[in-house]
């Protein structure tokens, strides 16, 4: 069964190019949308496995759409495609529930690979994003929720090592490395939810 993908981008040229690449590779593009509103309207009927999402789209923006999708359909994966790679936005999207992030200039092969990996639940991190995530964990916690191994793996991703290289260095399987990165992402998103919950309680938003 081919992977069902939804492409959300406000640039028609780009949307068409990505759509063609995905279809040529045998993936099933079930919907496209030009902005956040369209995306949220078409998303329930399209039921994609992966949403390929540009961060800079007309309101509601990529981060808001990511959060809404994570809320409505946790099994759907969001892969962020960003042209400018603005750090705070990318980190916000990942915290809101995105599984991966890719710069738009990535090659077709990289894009297809990323879509397939994200569909399988594998986080796709760039070294830059791993650095941001590390910083996020190291900033305000004297006691990081990450295990030593997870921190080690995340550091290696931030240093530009591929999962294969990390597996070789640590003498573990590729799958183990993937699990560590997955756990890291889960903890980051949980961390985010804890923050949100604390915020809600502090501001009295938890009362119905």
């Amino acid at each position, binding site marked *: 069964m081919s992977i069902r993908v939804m492409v959300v981008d406000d640039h028609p*040229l780009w949307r068409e190019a990505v759509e063609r690449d995905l279809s040529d590779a045998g993936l099933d593009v079930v919907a496209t949308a030009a902005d956040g509103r369209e995306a949220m309207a078409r998303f329930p009927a399209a039921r994609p496995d992966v949403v390929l999402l540009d961060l800079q789209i007309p309101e509601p923006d990529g981060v808001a759409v990511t959060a809404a999708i994570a809320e409505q359909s946790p099994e759907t994966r969001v892969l962020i495609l960003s*042209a*400018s790679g603005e750090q705070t936005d990318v980190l916000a999207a990942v915290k809101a529930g995105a599984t991966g992030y890719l710069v738009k*200039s990535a090659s077709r092969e990289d894009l297809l690979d990323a879509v397939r990996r994200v569909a399988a639940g594998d986080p796709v991190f760039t070294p*830059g994003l791993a650095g941001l995530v590390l910083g*996020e964990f190291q900033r305000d916690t004297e006691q990081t929720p990450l295990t030593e191994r997870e921190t080690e793996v995340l550091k290696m991703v931030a*240093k*530009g090592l591929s999962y294969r290289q990390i597996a070789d*260095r640590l003498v573990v399987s590729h799958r183990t490395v993937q699990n560590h990165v997955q756990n890291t992402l889960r903890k980051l998103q949980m961390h985010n939810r804890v923050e949100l919950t604390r915020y809600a309680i502090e501001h009295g938003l938890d009362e119905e």
Partner: protein
Amino acid sequence: MGSATLRLVRTPHSPAAVAVENRLFRALAVLRTIVLLNTVGLSIYHADDFARPVLGAVCIAAMVVWTAVVTWSCTEPRRRTPTVLGADLALALGLLLLSPLVKGDDFTSSLPGFWIVGALLSWSIHYRWQGGLAAGVVLATADLAQRQDVAQSDYGNAFLLVIAGPIVGFMSGSVQQMATEREAAERTAAVAAERARLARAVHDGVLQVLALVQRRGRELGGDAAELGRLAGEQERELRRLIRAQDEFAPVAAGTVDLAAELTGLERRYAVTVSTPGTPVEVPAVVGRELVAAVQACLDNVRVHVGPDAPAWVLLQAFADRVELSVRDDGPGIAPGRLEEAAAQGRLGVTASVRGRVADLGGTAELTTGSFGTEWELVVPLGSAP
């Protein structure tokens, strides 16, 4: 709208200045009521001493009516005309001059009494220190001129009128000017934010197209591939520029943002720099030495691995230290090469990096092998020179 707004900023009566004046006139309305009640009360109490009680009553009635009229007039900026303010001062002056007639030549307190401060302060608020000074001099002169003998307290009151007018006027002008400046600063900040937002949208569009050209070019090959390569270069350049702009955060004097400094290296080397995403403030000397050490490592990658060989820098910031890693995917440094170089008296990159980091009280460790070469630099913060 734009030109109209600019014009208003330059004139003293900007919307912010008018708002300040409105507030001051509202406060003055309260003061006017208080001094009116005071004058009316005292006049009733001393009614028996009046030489011409009927004329006195008419004058008091005029004061009551005029206080209501002028208070109402001054609530609206457009009703604060020279006519109204002129009439205000003229009435105060007229009542002062009528004092000997109403109260007898040997009067001690003038007929309007403190009521005249209403007119004085109107002039101060509206015409600034110049208006306050003019009104103060006129009122003081009128008060003193008709007294048969000037008592110490009369002189004191007159003196207060002359100095209070310009002081209140000066303060009114200053507050109005500050409000105008703040309004202009707020507008400038809003314009800058809007410009940044627009720039972001424009940049994003350009980046999209460059990324697309790069991608398609690569697939088409031939001349198109060259176009794609150029587009890719420009795309990276623009993205670095935007990142550098985003990371431009004000830092304390004598410190630098190490994250921004290192990210700047992406412009000159084929390096990917990962940072915590927030400014990493370190003393300027630490920043300078660390950037130089990283540059030495990257130069070494160029020489020993290849001019376009990729490298990665990771910066981690902790409360007490910074940790830096510089890594490449090259063949590693052959065993014995470093010792050999040292024996030949070439200290080279190793000594340079170690020396710089040691001077900062930190440590530098080198790992090398078939997987590549990696430097780990740890520099404590706080105890650094």
